[in-house]
């Protein structure tokens, strides 16, 4: 159960080795935090920098295998009890997806289908416990897709639409969804890529998430300025949009 200042006692990270996921755990850590479950493909993810009193459990989780998602959530509950915050942090950039139909389908299977099935498995649990937040790491890439990474953008658009819709579907159940739309973040995923304006670090995303949770928001942008930027860019003429996507 979150306390009155919205500090969680338990956190489940789906995509347990994600840099952004780990930063969010660290930002939400407090004396209230008791248990963190890192669910991912790596059995030895980097431990978040939290008090040694916090129990860390790792679980096997493949976003691309929907048949296991309910079991993963159940195993997390078994280990930690009620899930106060669940972070959907897995994702792939799929650099080859635009030229490889199979790789593209694989990207959809993880980023979109995996988000939907694991999101539903989590929602089922949050509804059952009557409280809890699912934090979904969407992306500005899904707000308006770019020619240079449109398959990734499309997968994130699907995830985003699912997450914002799920938030409405959960209204009144005690469970809610916080959709997070980061811009370019320096993490393993973007390593070696050229930085763009408004590039930030995982800790900046984490601060935005912590603030959004405290204020009960349903959508946060990171950095916050991107909300206004995309408010405009979303409607920019195609030619302008293409020129911006160098």
């Amino acid at each position, binding site marked *: *159960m*979150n*306390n*009155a*200042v*919205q*500090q969680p*006692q338990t956190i489940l990270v789906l995509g347990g080795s994600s840099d952004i996921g780990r930063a969010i755990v660290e930002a939400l850590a*407090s*004396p*209230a935090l*008791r248990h963190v479950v890192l669910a991912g493909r790596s059995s030895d993810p980097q431990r978040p920098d939290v008090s040694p009193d916090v129990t860390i459990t790792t679980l096997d989780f493949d976003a691309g295998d929907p048949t296991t998602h309910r079991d993963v959530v159940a195993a997390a509950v078994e280990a930690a*009890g*009620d899930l106060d915050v669940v972070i959907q942090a897995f994702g792939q950039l799929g650099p080859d997806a635009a030229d490889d139909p199979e790789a593209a389908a694989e990207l959809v299977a993880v980023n979109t289908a995996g988000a939907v099935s694991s999101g539903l498995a989590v929602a089922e649990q949050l*509804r*059952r*416990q*009557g*409280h809890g937040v699912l934090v979904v790491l969407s992306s500005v890439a899904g707000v308006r897709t770019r020619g240079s990474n449109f398959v990734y953008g499309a997968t994130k658009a699907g995830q985003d639409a699912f997450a914002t819709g799920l938030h409405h579907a959960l209204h*009144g*159940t*005690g469970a809610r969804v916080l959709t997070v739309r980061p811009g370019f973040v320096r993490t393993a995923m973007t390593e070696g890529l050229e930085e763009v304006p408004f590039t930030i670090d995982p800790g900046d995303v984490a601060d935005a998430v912590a*603030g959004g949770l*405290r*204020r*009960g928001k349903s959508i946060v942008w990171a950095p916050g300025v991107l909300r206004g930027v995309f408010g405009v860019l979303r409607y920019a003429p195609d030619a302008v949009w293409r020129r911006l996507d160098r």
Partner: protein
Amino acid sequence: MLTGWGRTAPSAGRVIDLDGDAVRGAPHEALPIDEGRGAIPRGLGRSYGDPAQNGGGSVLRVLPGRSPISLDRNAATVTADAGVSFDDLLRVLVPAGFFVPVTPGTRFITVGGAIASDIHGKNHHVDGTFGHHCTRISLLTADGELRTLTPADGDLWWATIGGMGLTGLIVDATFDLIPIETSQCLVRTQRIANFDALVDTMAADDQRYSVAWVDLLASGAALGRSVLTCGEHARLDDLSAKQRRDPLAFAPPSLIDVPRGGPNVLSRAAVRAFNEVWYRKARRDHVGPESITGFFHPLDMVGAWNRLYGGAGFLQYQFVVPDDEVDTMRVAIERVVASGHASFLAVLKRFGPANPAMLSFPTSGWTLTLDVPAAASDLHVLLSELDELVLGAGGRHYLAKDAHITPSIVRAGYPRLAEWKAVRRSVDPHGYWISDQARRLGLLEEEVA
């Protein structure tokens, strides 16, 4: 969605209204089947945090039966259904010449809630807690058994008083009353310049009721400046000829409601202005009559005032430190002042000795209660500092107000927690009774030695 009075951590549960008479008629059929998330009783939801809610499970209210209040004038006792509010009670008792043995700062709580939180009032140093005045409780336990408990039942009695609804559903109870000649209180109001003067005056005080309203924005030489009110129930002789015509009149004014959905209007500036006016307005030293509502329940004149704090809600922080930890109390006040978190309605009170209830909050010493808006981003820093001070001084936090402490803090503050857990488990081995607070504080978890 349910929250406590502070409106901070909502959860959704199934609210089920039970009829007091029906429960007594067929106790074995009264409790809903456990669908995995258990059940918790709820009164009027005036506890501040999450003890009277149960995410995903059942939340049980006992509606008063057909004759919910029966007064025994000769014995000066009353038997009341658990769902009866103090508002209902006082409307019957006061005109009949009786007062509840202990009242909190609001009439809008139930008898069940009063026992489960083992509430205290301004008379704690003289009269102890509410549970101290109870003589009989009927308790519906998880096995469907309706048990009649008295203090002779020992452990289960003292685990239920202050037990936060986790031993079972209180269905009705009998308790002693205070006979009164009038519905007025004779109140002495004193303006006190600072903390040292306050502590000296309160330690010397011998009146039945006493409490100090501390200005938590005053600092430096004025730190702890306050308005101390001490009182007794007025006798007939204390009243004017006009008042004497209807000495037991009790007509609390009806409520003005605060509208829903407003912003936090209790900004620091607003609170500072309020505190200043309120301190200046109080007379230096004055004795005069006040009504029961004016003296005990002034906040009840504004309904739903908890909405004044806006959407994020607020916390009420209440702790007690032992008598010889006056310095810790001073440091705590200094920290709150220095933190800049606006707080009004800070209340300092002196407690008398503890009772045998394992989780009863009051222990001999000083208790401070303050309100803080939950929205402030650095509030947790202040709370952690205060927690450390309180535990370091051998103090503890009040579970009826708690909305933020942790399993280790409750364990440190309540040395008899393990004993209480064992008694609790003996009447509810499968953990049927459970609340969000119980989950948050691990109140049902086995103690590891």
